[in-house]
């Protein structure tokens, strides 16, 4: 329809005009972009660091990958397990809805290096029968883990702390002999910068001094996802707690957010970044509009409708915000990439959540900046232009 075609062309022309007015004022456009880019960069960087820390904190949960974890009710993070007696494993295995259940050991130990120094390590003891939760091997055969003193080492950023062991390398763990029978890769490294060794559950509890109860977690495979609530109820009745993988990761994140001050710090820094962006872009954009106020009045006098002026301003604000968002995200990704080149275990990761949070804040910055400008432009009367 001709009406629609004209409307579209008019919008195109007005937006082009808005674009020219914006980008031709290089000083203000640069200041606007800089403000928003800087704010997005900070917001992205802070939330990415936090996401990275959260991800690393839940690394064992992610790497093992079990859908349901049974644990002592006081456990808040994966690294602070409380041993459970053997009957818990038997009880869980007999629960309705459980396909199978296996024990998992997770603990720390000291490895004596060839130079006589000691290196702390994380030891994961997998169920002897099923090796449920085993990592993906890069070298070696998984069945060699059953060989005498067999351990699989994770080849991640912390690998070198064990003097880059090869297949057959020997080490001493709590005065026990250990042999590297495989190297593996995992999805996520741990938070505390410790190398990780996998072995069987029985060897882990044999090598590492433990309290009376040795099962750190019982990993449960439900018959179907619908059985999870029922299993949780039965575990609850037993005096323990069952958490899904996602719940356990959230519990770990909540611990860092609410019980370590990390969440508050992140919130404060993100809010400061937001305010920096808002104040720079809001003030610059408002000044930009003020500088052109009489011309906007002249446009009104010529015959431009108020809603078209509003569209122009919204376009300018959106264009600046989206460009700044892209540059800010790009700068953040680049910095994290560079940091990871130097420090492979660098705990920062860009998630869809970070992107969404920063985007939402940029939208708020653009909306707040344009709101003041739109109010000002709508108030200008063409008659004032004639009066001078």
């Amino acid at each position: 329809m001709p009406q629609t075609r004209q409307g579209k062309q008019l919008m195109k022309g007005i937006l082009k005009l808005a674009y020219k007015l914006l980008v031709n004022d290089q000083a203000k456009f640069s200041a606007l972009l800089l403000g928003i880019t800087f704010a997005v960069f900070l917001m992205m960087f802070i939330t990415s660091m936090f996401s990275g820390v959260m991800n690393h904190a839940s690394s064992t949960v992610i790497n093992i990958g079990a859908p349901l974890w049974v644990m002592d009710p006081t456990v808040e993070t994966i690294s602070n397990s409380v041993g459970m007696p053997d009957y818990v494993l038997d009880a869980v295995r007999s629960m309705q809805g459980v396909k199978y259940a296996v024990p998992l050991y997770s603990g720390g130990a000291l490895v004596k290096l060839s130079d006589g120094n000691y290196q702390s390590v994380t030891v994961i003891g997998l169920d002897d029968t099923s090796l449920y939760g085993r990592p993906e091997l890069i070298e070696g055969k998984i069945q060699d883990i059953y060989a005498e003193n067999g351990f699989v080492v994770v080849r991640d950023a912390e690998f070198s702390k064990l003097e880059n062991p090869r297949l057959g390398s020997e080490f001493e763990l709590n005065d026990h002999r250990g042999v590297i029978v495989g190297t593996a890769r995992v999805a996520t490294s741990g938070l505390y910068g410790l190398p990780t060794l996998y072995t069987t559950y029985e060897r882990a509890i044999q090598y590492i001094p433990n309290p009376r109860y040795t099962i750190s977690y019982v990993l449960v495979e439900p018959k179907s996802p619908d059985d999870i609530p029922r299993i949780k109820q039965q575990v609850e009745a037993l005096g323990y707690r069952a958490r899904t993988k996602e719940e356990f990761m959230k519990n770990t994140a909540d611990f860092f957010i609410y019980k370590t001050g990390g969440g508050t710090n992140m919130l404060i820094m993100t809010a400061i970044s937001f305010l920096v962006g808002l104040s720079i872009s809001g003030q610059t954009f408002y000044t930009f509009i003020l500088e052109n106020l009489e011309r906007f009045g002249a446009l009104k006098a010529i015959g431009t409708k108020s809603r078209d002026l509003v569209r122009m301003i919204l376009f300018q604000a959106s264009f600046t915000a989206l460009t700044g968002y892209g540059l800010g995200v790009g700068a953040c990704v680049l910095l994290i990439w560079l940091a990871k080149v130097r420090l492979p275990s660098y705990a920062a990761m860009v998630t869809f959540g970070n992107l969404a949070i920063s985007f939402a804040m940029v939208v708020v910055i653009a909306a707040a900046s344009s709101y003041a400008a739109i109010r000002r432009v709508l108030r200008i009367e063409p008659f004032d232009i004639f009066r001078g």
Partner: protein
Amino acid sequence: MPKKAIQASGLVKWFGEGEAKTMALRDVSLEAQFGEMVYIVGPSGSGKTTLLSVLTGILKPNTGKVLLEGVDIWGLSADQLADFRLAKIGFVFQDYHLFPRLTTAENVAIPLVLRDKNWGESIREAEKYLDIVGLKNRAELYPVKLSGGEQQRVAIARAIVDQPDILIMDEPTASLDGDTGVAILSFVRKNVLNQDRCIVVVTHDDRIYQFATRILQMEDGRLKGPEKKGA
């Protein structure tokens, strides 16, 4: 019989209420034909600018009627009125109001862009009109690089680029020296005025009265007779 471009009758406009009430227009009626260059002259505060605003659909009168080319503009909706202004009226403002960050060609192209022409076409058309006002070689310059007279010519080019039937010039010589002002109005009279266009000029600069076809005098919100016949 010449066609009537403007017919205004019984225009009354006041500002404020009660003791603060100020009468700006007191029962003003006027007509202007196509082919005329009508001056509205008078001292500051006489109501010239208010009359201009009422005639162009910018300021609503308290009472009275304005017909432009036979259309009762104050009977139109806000959107219709804006469209009417864009299509039928060209404005030359006292301070030009050129966008400093747009080139002269881009400034001139604005009315075309606000209508439905695409950007490239509008710029080419604007360059033609810059040629008409003698500024073809200034198309790529920004207004700040132009003299006052040149800026005024750009404003005129912008006002006529969409070939409006009615051209409104508000104090067109206020920011110009005498010779430039005279040259500009001489140019307008010779090159912009034609039988299909009516030009209304608000001014109190008697050096340019020679270019009017008719002069209306305002005083204290009223048009004072008798009208003077211009050149």
